[in-house]
């Protein structure tokens, strides 16, 4: 034993060292990649590794040969002298007792090598000090899997590899789990939902030899399979519903989420799945799906326009994209090479900016403008049906028609002798009603006599609110806004004798009018003033108007008036536009990736600073990986996608199968599923990982095939029951000598509660929904009134699967985050699972969860079963198991206790059952007690865990 593996927090271990109890280092020869490389990487590479800037001395410990290589003899000494540790400077340095000699030096802030590590290094040098190519950077090699003696375990490559390893360790695998456990495990693992009682019964009574496979196929063909798979991908690509920065506005990605679900259900091949997301926009004739998928490039955090510098925002978006690319597809921390060469992996800073150059050419803006309509920041597409296209086209046509009419009207007016060439400013007194108080409409009138019909007469008017103008009983026109005065030509309306002008507004307002007309050569003017009559409301009497103390605005309105006819058409155009945007709200959209032309130049950025450009760089892939074969002179994201899935690429398939394995066993074959580089973990089962990666590629990147292979394996089917000691020795089940047992994810826990209580709404696809959450959470972080309050949905929407829950990145739903769901601000390849008191509180007290227990209790009582039968039913519904006699006794005893207590405390009972269907008093305490029983069951480890 050289490492303590049970330590919860490996603070003194800077790398995820290979769990020693699982290694065979004591008996077997040193494995360089497994045993030595992690030590060198962690302790030495920072100064003697790939990064040229921080390199101390002429020494690289990451490579054996060349002038800087570790095995190359120096003038009068050796860094590493094969076979002779004592003659090797490396050995001398790591074992030195003197502060000025010891490596790593104190200034590196690294702990010295432990005795066990020194021992390994010593043995390695003794055995020849041989280097091997870093495993993850050479293509997966397929070793002929062994043939094993156990027939059951000799059917699949997975099982042969695992069985042999377990046997070599002197252990035996666990028996296959019982059928109830298996169907529960499969249902949760493949669909994220527990099995129904009918499904359990059907599986148990299916005695055919392929019952298990039938079940697997059935589960994988359900739409819930795609939903479940999409959820893991959502963590990985940080799929959220808001910008994540500053005002954290809505950002619409539900169509991307729905595309994920559909792709998994349709079993879209993983190479296409990658390619559509990275470069769907670059296909020659992209389908809608490909365009939606390209929204992958838009999932980064983004700021809305404010005080940030746009060029800095642009840079941040790009590095976010590059990081997502690295984590998602390469399983590498490429972002570490942003300011300098990577300290541990052979990724140079130039490599980084060559990748950056693929992602810096986004055609759209680097910031959103406030909250974009529908949460869609250009570029985006509308996912219309033909019918919807027709409707949108009609809006456009109507708008164009109105615009033409508007222009014609302006032309006619400007050609008319009756209209002035320009309007001149006039000081107009504003009037208002004398009465104030509860008035809801106002009317202003004036009468005046004319001796003849005027050849020219132009009225200009405005109100503090919208106001209509009537002359001699004819409607002339109206204003539509406070700041827009109207003009009307009245020569045809005015007549000799008495004329009456009437202005009407639905709300109290001031009013101003100027009428210019001519009688013969005499130019005259009528203005609003105290001679006008005014009344507040139709029922009131008229009284003389008052001069308004406050005028709505100064006299420039008299210059900028538009004719009432034009105003009315403008109003029509505005209405058409409004109706169109209203209509658009019912049409889903998808933000897409788009390239600008000509492409934006890319340069190195010195020290990673956005405003410190260095030498220009061209798009390319990191030099230590196989070369890209671009189709044109300037490689594109499409070339990048093809490079990822080229047959010789060492990482893509490994990284993908590892994550899928992790879904089914709780931990990946490489535990650090986000990092396959030097600082990542050496896989416990490299041969298994490579086998899976190779066959995944050979299958044509067939995800369902891979998933099926995994769940069909004997390895997967093992019981998770083991001795305490076995758990202690291998807490995370890295050796796979049993079935895995781990806490379900937040979403599965919630969906399960809804499912077993019968509340779950299984509607597929659609906009994100807002189930109730405690008050005040958004207020605690929001900066603007518009985005401030969480308004929960109502009705069936609140019971949709958690995958559809609205995810505000600045304050994600607590039901999810308390259970270790990530915030979706950055890419997460694996969730942690800690056990906290807040989780206990959540499951004890969350309203909807408790409500589900009530609903479940009342459903069970409705079935009028005997008490013991009812208890069995409740237990089976929640755990998928049948209770044994002891457990049933305990449940019954507890139920009685609850019932007695509620009978003795009627007020408590009443508050619990409030709102439930009226039942008689006996029934009420029964219902309360039963609610506590179903609620207790939902809190059991048997329910919260996948086992």
């Amino acid at each position, binding site marked *: 034993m050289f490492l303590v593996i049970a330590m919860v*927090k490996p603070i003194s271990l800077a790398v995820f060292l290979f769990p020693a109890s699982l290694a065979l280092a004591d008996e077997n020869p040193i494995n360089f990649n497994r045993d030595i490389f992690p030590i060198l990487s962690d302790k030495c590479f920072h100064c003697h590794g790939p990064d040229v800037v921080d390199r101390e001395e002429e020494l690289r410990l990451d490579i054996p040969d060349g002038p800087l290589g570790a095995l190359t003899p120096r003038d009068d000494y050796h860094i590493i002298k094969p076979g002779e540790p004592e003659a090797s400077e490396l050995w001398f340095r790591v074992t030195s007792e003197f502060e000025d000699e010891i490596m790593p030096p104190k200034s590196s802030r690294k702990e010295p090598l432990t005795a066990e590590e020194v021992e390994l290094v010593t043995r390695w040098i003794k055995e020849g000090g041989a280097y091997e190519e870093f495993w993850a950077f050479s293509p997966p090699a397929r070793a002929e899997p062994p043939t094993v003696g156990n027939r059951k375990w000799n059917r699949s490559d997975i099982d042969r590899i695992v069985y042999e390893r377990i046997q070599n360790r002197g252990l035996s695998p666990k028996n296959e789990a019982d059928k109830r456990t298996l169907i529960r495990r499969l249902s949760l693992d493949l669909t994220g939902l527990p099995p129904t009682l009918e499904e359990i019964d059907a599986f148990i009574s299916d005695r055919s030899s392929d019952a298990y496979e039938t079940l697997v196929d059935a589960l994988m063909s359900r739409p819930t399979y795609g939903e479940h798979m999409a959820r893991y991908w959502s963590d990985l690509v940080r799929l959220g519903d808001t910008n994540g920065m500053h005002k954290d506005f809505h950002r619409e990605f539900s169509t991307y989420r729905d595309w994920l679900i559909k792709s998994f259900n349709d079993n879209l091949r993983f190479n296409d799945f990658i390619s559509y997301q990275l470069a769907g926009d670059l296909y020659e004739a992209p389908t809608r799906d490909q365009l939606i998928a390209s929204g992958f490039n838009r999932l980064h955090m983004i700021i809305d326009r404010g005080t*940030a510098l*746009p060029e800095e925002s642009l840079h941040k978006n790009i590095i976010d994209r590059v990081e997502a690319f690295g984590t998602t597809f390469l399983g590498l921390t490429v972002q570490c090479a942003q300011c300098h060469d990577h300290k541990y992996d052979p990724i140079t800073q130039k490599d980084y900016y060559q990748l950056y150059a693929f992602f810096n050419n986004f055609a759209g803006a680097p910031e959103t403008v406030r909250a974009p309509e529908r949460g869609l920041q250009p570029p985006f597409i509308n996912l219309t049906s033909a019918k919807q296209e027709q409707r949108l086209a009609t809006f456009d046509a109507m708008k164009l028609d109105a615009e033409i009419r508007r222009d014609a009207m302006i032309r006619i007016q400007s050609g008319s002798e009756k209209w002035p060439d320009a309007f001149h400013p006039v000081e107009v007194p504003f009037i208002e009603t004398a009465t104030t108080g509860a008035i809801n409409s106002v009317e202003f009138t004036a009468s005046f006599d004319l001796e003849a019909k005027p050849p020219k007469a132009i009225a200009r008017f405005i109100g503090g609110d919208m106001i209509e103008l009537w002359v001699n009983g004819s409607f002339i026109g109206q204003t539509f806004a406070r700041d827009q005065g109207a003009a009307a030509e009245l020569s045809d309306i005015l007549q000799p004798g008495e004329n009456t002008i009437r202005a009407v507004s639905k709300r109290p307002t001031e009013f101003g009018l100027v009428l210019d007309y001519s009688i013969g050569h005499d130019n005259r003017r009528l203005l609003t003033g105290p001679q006008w009559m005014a009344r507040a409301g139709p029922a009131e009497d008229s009284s003389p108007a008052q001069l308004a103390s406050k005028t709505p605005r100064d006299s420039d309105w008299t210059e900028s008036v538009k004719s009432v006819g034009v105003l009315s058409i403008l109003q029509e155009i505005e209405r058409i536009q409004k109706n169109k945007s209203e209509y658009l709200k019912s049409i889903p959209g998808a933000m897409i990736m788009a390239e600008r032309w000509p492409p934006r130049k890319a340069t190195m950025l010195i020290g990673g600073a956005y405003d410190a450009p260095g030498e220009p760089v061209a798009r390319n892939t990191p030099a230590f990986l196989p070369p890209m074969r671009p189709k044109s002179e300037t490689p594109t994201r499409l070339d990048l996608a093809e490079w990822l899935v080229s047959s010789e690429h060492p990482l893509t398939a490994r990284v993908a199968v590892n994550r899928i394995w992790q879904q089914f066993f709780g931990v990946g074959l490489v535990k650090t599923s986000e990092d396959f580089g030097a600082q990542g973990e050496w896989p416990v089962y490299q041969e298994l990982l490579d086998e899976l990666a190779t066959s995944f590629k050979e299958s044509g990147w067939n995800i369902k095939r891979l998933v099926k292979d995994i769940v069909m394996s004997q390895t997967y089917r093992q019981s998770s029951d*083991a001795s305490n000691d076995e758990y202690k020795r291998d807490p995370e089940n890295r050796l796979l000598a049993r079935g895995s047992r781990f806490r379900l994810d937040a979403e599965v826990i919630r969906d399960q509660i809804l499912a077993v209580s019968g509340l779950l709404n299984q509607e597929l696809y659609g906009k994100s929904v807002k189930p109730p959450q405690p008050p005040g959470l958004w207020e605690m972080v929001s900066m603007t009134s518009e985005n401030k309050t969480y308004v929960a949905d109502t009705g069936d929407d609140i019971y949709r699967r958690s995958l559809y829950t609205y995810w505000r990145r600045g304050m994600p739903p607590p039901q999810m985050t308390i259970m270790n769901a990530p915030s979706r601000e950055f890419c997460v390849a694996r969730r942690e699972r800690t056990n906290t008191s807040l989780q206990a509180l959540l499951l004890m007290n969350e309203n909807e969860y408790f409500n589900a227990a009530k609903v479940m209790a009342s459903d069970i009582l409705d079935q009028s079963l005997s008490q013991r039968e009812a208890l069995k039913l409740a237990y089976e519904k929640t755990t998928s198991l049948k209770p044994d006699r002891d457990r049933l006794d305990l449940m019954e005893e507890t139920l009685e206790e*609850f019932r007695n207590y509620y009978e003795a405390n009627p007020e408590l009972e009443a508050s619990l059952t409030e709102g439930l269907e009226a039942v008689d008093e006996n029934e009420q305490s029964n219902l309360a007690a039963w609610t506590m029983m179903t609620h207790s069951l939902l809190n059991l480890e048997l329910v919260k865990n996948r086992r």
Partner: protein
Amino acid sequence: MAPSYQQFCDTLNRRQFLKRASIGLGVSALSGSLSPLVASAEPGLHFPAKAKRVIFLFMAGAPSQLDLFDSKPELERLHGQPLPPEISRGQRVTSMTRGKKQVVCASIFKFGPQGKSGLTMSELLPHLSKHADDICLIKSTHTEAINHDPAKTFFCTGSEMPGRASMGSWLSYGLGSINKDLPNFVVLSSAFWSGKVNVQALYSRLWGTGFLPGKHQGIAFQSVGDPVLFLSNPEGVDRSVRSKMLDFVAKVNAHDADISGDPEIHTSIAQQEMAFRMQASIPELTDLSKEAESSLDLYGPEVHQSGSFARNCLLARRMAERDVRFVQLFHRGWDHHRGLPTHLRGQAKDVDQPIAGLLTDLKQRGLLDDTLVVFAGEFGRTTYAQNLDPQNREDYGRDHHPRCFTTWMAGGGIKGGISYGETDEFCYNVIKDPVHVRDLHATMFHQLGIDHNKLIFPHQGLDQRLTGVEEANVIKDILA
């Protein structure tokens, strides 16, 4: 009659504790015996700890150091003149003031020496001024980001990019808990404030756990509803029913733990115990009915309003008494791009008496010695004006300024009554003893007995530290 849940837990505790602890999956934080510092090669802390806990007063939005702490009387003479280019050196400014004239703007507030030490503070802080001798002003604090979001994220997590662990999470992770039934890291955010302009957002990542285990997450207390989310039992469930329910659940779980062999089940049982205890301990913590009138008065009249900064200061003291390791208060409303004098008066009033009250109260109870109180915004504000009304000295604003700002510390083994670091005559650049936010982090850790270089967590192939990869130094000169 079955034994009570409490009895059951006790039995279980005795029976299971050693078993659990031995495999390191128990409620390790409770005992502290499994905290990483202890688990590392050297047992115990890196240094003798001067402080056991921290109360961090975070002034979100960035208060103006020029109008509160860093007095520059000579600016009166330069008022209205352009900022000399040799001072501004063409450095990056926000998009709000980019390309605009930088006109020097003197503070309209009076400054004067306070206490025996003669530390200078603005007239806006009459109560805090009485504590001048307890406080160490750090006038040379600086940071990089010039916008709120990245600057706050940096101050709270040591990185501008989201995803890192917050200060409190690091402390919880590094030191473990010293109380039995309360969270280790609590966040108290004011529900209202006086500065009504440009109220900046917060994000749960500011108290997030990042890559550290989830139990080190800051627990944000709510000013409405349950102080801790989901704390109260649902309608119709009282403590006795809850106890019966947990009793049943624990029995079934313990039995299944024996069958399945999974020790994590015992952790889960322990966390349910803890939840049950919190259902009593948190209401006790937030129940102020037993506070003496004289204590309440220390914090000013707003202490009677739930969600006020004053109330949160009092709660912070109660948490310090109960050994909550890290309490972080957020008070928003400091982003004064315009109308600074009006809004700053309001904001200063919001916090002045409550903070003074907190210091007095901690001192009276002997808690200030081992409680480190830190006051900081995410950056400072510019010496040049924004939205300046040339006719009216009362009307000016200031833009974001990361190059220098004032933070302060008190208690927890920090020298009181001193001013550390200096800025130039314009309060634009640091000219002596610069203190990066990282250095502040390192100093805070140091006082708690932690070497910031050694408190690490491996993630993404790196030894992650709060202070990151750049060098950070403890400010030795301010240690008592």
